[in-house]
């Protein structure tokens, strides 16, 4: 019998109204690198949160056996104590502290409460040597690159005598050299006997490094493949990740496609936090009136960044490229410019960027189109009420009245408020970022119907979505984005989940700056 360091069996995790995980099983052999693959929202992160105790024992069903013992973690401290360390994609370092201080944060080398700096820096140096980080232990973390920061995280994990190291998308923010170094390091750790679980969208890396791979889809385990025994190719993994049938979840729609509404050419955006890194790299796309266009891409591909940089440069620095509206070049430097040129952007994060949760429906609906409801700076409140009431009915917003506070509505109804807000500005082009995220199936159908209606009114709609079936069911044409580049464009007839996934995971061979 094989020696499993970790066995998770029958894990079911329910959130109000949604089953995030259903009877998931995961077995990891001692001393292997085990990859977990799945679409965005398949449940990978939820599973890792169950394992690391973020969701404590008792909030889920099922059993976890780690290192031969049944576990009931009450929090992250318990799981770390057992030897499980998770490194999130967003690094949890304190940027103004030194490397050594970060490595021993919460685990300080101290004598009677006084820190022993010699020992701290000496031991940090040893750990840094193990992970191949050539820096002075006293260097401040914000002065080193993301790749090296990742290594600091791993050194920190090693300082805690880790047995199982979990890395969530470790290479998503790294360039090719740093990625290669990290993968080498993981192989080295495996040889030292540390088991690794790696969550990754980069299938070439998975096939290169993993000993086995578990595929999760819609909150269920689909299969676990042994890379040595089975013939596992990237295509094999892709078919496991997407293998679900399309059903009648989409309202029928006959597109009436007109002239070009918006064209973006050679659009390049740099990351504000890492000025050298291109988040969007030479992207070009065209939207036409009456057309619903999809934008597919995995986490970190730059979808939202592309949309926000176009919408009044609300993301990114050193933005270059051209925007054409109705064939004429336009300058869009602010959100006001964008709205004036008939653009609307409904954000993927409704609560943070889309809504004023403490205000009522009518004031949220009027937030972007207030100038149309006012004369010489005075708001016509009756007109505002009437408009909100119209959307209340036409969008079927389920709330007692338009004076209901938006923070108390369900996700689907909040999304309808966001859409109403933008429709009020009478846009020609709507960019909808994850329009159905966190929304139940029935409300999704309503949102799709609204999107179809907008297209029929002659508006161009760009839908950004992590759910491939949604893009296939809704869109007349789909662009695929990978690492900031448009890697392909498929019309409705030719788009399949497999082909899109291939384009989305296609590594750009040209090196990054």
């Amino acid at each position, binding site marked *: 019998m094989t020696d499993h360091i970790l066995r998770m069996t029958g894990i079911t995790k329910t959130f109000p109204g949604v089953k995030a995980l259903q009877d998931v099983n995961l077995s990891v052999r001692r001393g292997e690198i085990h990859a977990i693959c799945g679409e965005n929202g398949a449940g990978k992160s939820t599973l890792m949160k169950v394992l690391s105790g973020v969701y404590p024992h008792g909030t889920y069903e099922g059993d976890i056996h780690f290192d031969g013992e049944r576990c009931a973690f009450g929090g992250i401290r318990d799981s770390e104590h057992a030897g499980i360390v998770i490194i999130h994609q967003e690094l949890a370092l304190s940027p103004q502290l030194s490397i050594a201080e970060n490595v021993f944060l919460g685990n300080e080398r101290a004598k009677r409460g006084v820190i022993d700096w010699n020992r701290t820096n000496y031991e940090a140096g040893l750990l840094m040597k193990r992970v191949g980080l050539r820096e002075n232990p006293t260097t401040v973390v914000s002065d080193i690159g993301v790749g090296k920061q990742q290594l600091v995280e791993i050194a920190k994990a090693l300082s805690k005598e880790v047995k199982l190291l979990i890395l969530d998308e470790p290479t998503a923010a790294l360039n090719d050299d740093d990625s290669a170094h990290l993968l080498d390091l993981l192989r080295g750790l495996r040889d030292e006997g540390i088991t690794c679980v790696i969550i990754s969208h980069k299938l070439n890396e998975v096939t290169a490094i993993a000993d086995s791979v578990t595929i999760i889809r819609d909150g269920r385990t689909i299969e676990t493949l042994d890379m040595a025994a089975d013939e596992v190719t990237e295509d094999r993994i892709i078919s496991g990740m997407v293998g679900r049938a399309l059903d009648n979840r989409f309202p029928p729609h006959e597109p009436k496609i007109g002239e070009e509404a918006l064209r973006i050419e050679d659009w390049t955006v740099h990351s504000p936090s890492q000025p050298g890194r291109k988040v969007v790299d030479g992207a070009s796309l065209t939207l036409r009136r009456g057309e619903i266009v999809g934008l597919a891409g995995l986490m970190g591909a730059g979808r939202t960044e592309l949309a926000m940089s176009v919408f009044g440069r609300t993301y990114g620095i050193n933005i270059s490229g051209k925007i054409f509206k109705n064939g004429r070049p336009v300058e869009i430097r602010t959100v006001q410019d964008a709205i004036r040129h008939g653009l609307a952007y409904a954000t993927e994060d409704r609560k943070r960027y889309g809504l004023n949760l403490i205000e009522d429906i009518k004031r949220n609906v009027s937030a972007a189109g207030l100038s149309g409801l006012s004369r010489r700076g005075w708001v016509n409140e009756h007109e505002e009420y009437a408009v909100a009431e119209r959307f209340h009915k036409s969008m079927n917003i389920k709330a007692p009245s338009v004076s209901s506070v938006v923070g*108390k509505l369900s996700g689907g109804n909040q999304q309808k408020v966001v859409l109403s807000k933008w429709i009020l500005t009478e846009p020609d082009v709507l960019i909808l970022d994850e329009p159905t995220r966190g929304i*139940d199936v029935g409300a999704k159908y309503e949102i799709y119907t609204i999107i179809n209606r907008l297209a029929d009114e002659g508006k161009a709609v760009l839908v950004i979505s992590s759910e491939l079936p949604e893009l296939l069911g809704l869109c007349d044409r789909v662009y695929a984005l990978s690492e900031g580049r448009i890697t392909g464009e498929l019309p409705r007839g030719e788009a399949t989940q497999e082909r899109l996934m291939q384009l989305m995971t296609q590594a750009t061979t040209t090196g990054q700056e």
Partner: protein
Amino acid sequence: MSSTTPAAVAAGATGGEPEEPKRPGRVSLGGLSLNLRSSGIYIAFALIVALFSVLTDGALLTPQNISNIIVQNSYILILAIGMILVIIAGHIDLSVGSVVAVTGAISAVLMVNMGVPWPLALLITVAAGALIGAWQGYWVAYFGIPAFIVTLAGMLLFRALTLTVLGNQGIGPFPDQVRTLANGFTSGYLGNVGLGPLGGADLFSLLVALVAIAGMVVSQWRTRTARAGYGQAVEPFAVFVVKMAAGAALILFLVVQLARFKNLPWVLVLLAVLVLGYSLLANKTVFGRQIYAIGGNLQAAVMSGVKVKKVVFWIFVNMGVLAAIAGVIFAGRLNQAGPTAGNMFELDAIAAAFIGGAAVQGGVGKVVGAITGGLIMAVINNGMSLIGSPSERVMLVKGLVLLAAVAFDVWTKRRAGAAA
């Protein structure tokens, strides 16, 4: 910001939120449903007035005392109007006390030392206040320094400027017109009328009260019919009548008491105009709406096309203007611009805003609420001094009231949050 946060993955995976709308902090009295969080402040004010009326054997509500409360607190109330807008936008202004001092000093130098005609001097002083506001607004809105720091610096800067301008001594006396504005009353243009057992009262003041009541009823009635015309639900006619009658009774009581003393204080007229104007600004103008949008969710406001920097800049300019008006009135009342004028006024104005229902995180608050908050403090001050409490006890009570008011706000919000 990006699509790459793990939290976003989790949100995508987890999805739905609970649906049931709860209504915490609401009480039902027959057909009347009251939102405790928004109307608690007015109930509290009524209770405090009632309490001190009893404790002072009615001295609190005598004609002269009402007049005193208004005149003695007018400058704090004016500051509170500007402060509530600053706080709704999610900022703070610690410098208003010093701005009151420096604008008072400027007006004194202009009117007393340089002999500039008082209307022109007033105009220049207000412009100076606007300039001070613009200075602070620039650092907050365009340079991105937290308002706490900018206005803390301003507190020192403008106090230093006051001392420089005044040369560490008071300047006075002010022209009579300015003193009248700050401390005086409308003349008895139409003579007195007898009100039976209440004695004589100023006819002009009473007519003003009747006009105010008529204005209130007509505007409320027009709003009501317009709402009904747009198919909105309106409160039952009986409730409307009761509300109007209560409002009319309040105005009438206030003015009759004042008319029995010395007619209407000019600062009350000014305050009424400011309260009305700024209430309209906050609720019915695009600018006002944008203040709430910025305080409610800054990022959402940015993404909705609100020119956040510009709005924040003008809020501070406005604060400077109101501080200048308060500065002239305060100096005029004392008949002297002094180096310590306006000391701690910022704290009173901020306390008024928070007692009046503003939220620490911004996005919530009303002009009328801030005025009520200021009046609560004023009544506590005045009532306690009438019953002879020592000043340390007044301070103690005011501190506890401020803490209790914000604790109440946080508590109702937490209950609301638990439901969402």
